[in-house]
């Protein structure tokens, strides 16, 4: 007499065998789907080669370089002030934030410190470029899962912030405003009041997005449990920004390593989410925009007086040495490893961009998901192609 467990075992084997027979009979050939380089879901020219079984992804391999501009090589033949023009184009929706870590690294090597007012204005513009960047994400995430209207709202309200950036720096997209030793100009008259109004509009935009997307059952069904990144995997892939905070890692360079910026003098909070899925990433970013608007308000209130430029030589020669400075940019941690030999130009600039690391997890993350989820996951990881291809 066979024991119950043995019988269960046997019936399990029989069922497996039957399944195997069926599977062999209806076995189908896999299909390779090229998503990109020209594709609406990839924000530019990223290409993902996905091997599919039906609609399920067996393996996905992102291929980039369609927009590689070789900034690391180009930076070697440009003087330090000229480099900011290049690096403005790395993450082109939050350009000002790109300049900050490079300038800070150069300042660190030169042992120059920006005057307080310059540091505060830097922080204001840094946070405003975060708002400009992430509010685009909030609309775009809706677009990726099929809701068209939030994208229009995002473009509408992002305009208020861009207008303020333009008023202060003269450039909507590429401010090129940060200088070694300070910033180019002081703020124009009336700017602070106008900025506070813009922040109010951004906050109401956040509420609108919360109602339109976050509270929507379909949105939740599409995002919850999709693309779960455990904290340890995220760390070993070097994920940063909201992507790692959505996995429950309480780490924000603005708070933990604030070199040069004045975030530590403000009252704010680092938001994390324990789930690690697409919804968590969306949620954390939404809170971050809100937090940024509060920060900008505080910064506007407490703006110190004084000069906006330290005494620096006209022809900037940076003393020999190596420095690495990273800041918490809109897309995640962005750092510049600057090697100087005491020359007009940097000897080597290693650009550590956030999206390159963030997107390197995709081969691991996309395995086994369905085709519609590719879009959700890519959308929620949020990359800007210039930030990958540098």
């Amino acid at each position: 007499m066979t024991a119950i467990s043995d019988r269960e075992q046997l019936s399990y084997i029989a069922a497996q065998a039957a399944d195997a027979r069926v599977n062999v009979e209806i076995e189908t050939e896999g299909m390779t789907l090229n998503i990109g380089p020209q594709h609406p879901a990839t924000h530019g020219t990223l290409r993902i080669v996905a091997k599919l079984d039906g609609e399920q992804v067996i393996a996905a391999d992102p291929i980039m370089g369609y927009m590689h501009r070789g900034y690391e090589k180009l930076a070697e033949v440009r003087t330090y002030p000229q480099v900011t023009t290049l690096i403005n184009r790395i993450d082109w929706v939050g350009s000002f934030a790109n300049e900050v870590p490079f300038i800070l690294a150069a300042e660190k090597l030169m042992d120059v410190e920006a005057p307080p007012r310059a540091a505060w204005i830097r922080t204001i513009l840094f946070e405003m470029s975060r708002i400009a960047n992430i509010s685009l994400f909030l609309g775009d995430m809706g677009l990726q899962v099929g809701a068209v209207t939030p994208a229009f709202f995002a473009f509408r309200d992002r305009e208020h912030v861009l207008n303020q950036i333009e008023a202060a720096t003269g450039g909507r997209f590429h401010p090129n405003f940060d200088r070694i030793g300070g910033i180019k100009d002081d703020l124009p008259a009336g700017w602070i009041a106008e900025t506070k109004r813009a922040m109010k509009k951004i906050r109401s935009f956040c509420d609108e997005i919360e109602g339109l997307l976050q509270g929507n059952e379909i949105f939740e069904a599409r995002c919850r449990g999709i693309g779960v990144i455990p904290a340890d995997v995220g760390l070993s892939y070097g994920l940063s920004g909201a992507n790692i905070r959505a996995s429950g890692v309480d780490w924000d360079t603005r708070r933990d390593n604030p070199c040069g910026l004045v975030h530590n003098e403000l009252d704010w909070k680092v938001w994390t989410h324990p789930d690690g899925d697409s919804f968590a990433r969306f949620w954390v970013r939404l809170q971050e925009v809100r937090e940024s608007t509060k920060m900008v308000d505080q910064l506007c209130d407490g703006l110190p007086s004084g000069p906006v430029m330290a005494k620096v030589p006209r022809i900037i020669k940076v003393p020999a040495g190596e420095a690495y400075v990273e800041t918490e940019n809109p897309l995640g941690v962005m750092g510049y490893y600057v090697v100087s030999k005491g020359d007009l130009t940097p000897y080597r600039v290693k650009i550590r961009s956030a999206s390159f690391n963030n997107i390197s997890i995709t081969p691991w993350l996309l395995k086994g998901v369905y085709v519609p989820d590719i879009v959700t996951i890519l959308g929620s990881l949020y990359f800007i192609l210039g930030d990958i291809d540098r």
Partner: protein
Amino acid sequence: MTDVAILGELAYWQQTGIRVGAGLAAVLLVAGTLVYLHLFKLVSFMQSRLGPMEAGPFGSLQLLAEVGKFLQKEDIFPRKADRFVFAAAPFVVLMSTFLLVVVVPGGPDAWFINSELGIYLAMAVSSVSVIGILMAGWGSASKYSLLGGLRATGQLIAYELPLILAVMGVVIQAETMNMQGIVQAQADGEIFGWGGIGNPYILTQFVAFVIFMIAMQAELTQTPFDMPIAESELVTGYMTEYSGMRFLLFFIGEFATAGVFSAIASVLFLGGWWAPIPGLGFDDNVWNLLGPLVLVTKVVVLTFIIFWARFSLPRFREDQLQQLAWKVLIPLALANIVVTALLKIVF
């Protein structure tokens, strides 16, 4: 006295001519109205923009410009496409729209066909578009199109069931499958003895109405059920490879079908071409002119709901929308039939 009286005296070919003209008008004019009102203006309002403003007053001639643009475009065939299937697919889709429109009555005598099995015929021919979509998906020789075509097929077949089951409640209550009869049943109906507005079945068959609207949204592959098109992942699904006139045919088909399905829904649930106007009998000849206008008004209201949902909601994933059809809508529709049948016996 009116045109209908004249219609009886016309030769057969003349009557046919009028019918073809009316059919074209019912498809093209309705589609144009919907595109302008909803796609151009309503959506622009929702998204805080103006929409087309240059061509004609408030951009009302924009449609003509668009049609002109599409007609000028090159008719591109992908190199590996199955040329005949690829070329024929848009016509099959549009044909199903034309077949649908013939069952919708516009007045006591303004109808194309007055079949005893009107709604049955409508449900049957609405499935023809699946073949066209599958043809487009297969014939394009593109992976995106194929995925889109297959998704569309699965989805349309799944949602046909709740659609038909929702209709059954109305049919049981009206005791007829004749569309004209369903209109009359609603016009003659009474709400607890009060016959002021007849008895539009949206009141008694509200569950069926909701199911019908949801299933209709899915049949039209509009967001939140637009997985087969899904711009952000499949580009535009089965329409990816189409350009020029053939794309225009798909486009007209999409909006005309939205109009025709809304017309069927308004016949089933809102009293069709009939409206409670005192002093007008059901068979009054005035209805032959007024009826189509009343119907179009109801169509605009129903399509407003469709486009409202389309531009505010995200889309379901393929498996989620299948679950919605099989696990929620179909059991609900079956329950509705049972309850309707029981109440029919009781009252």
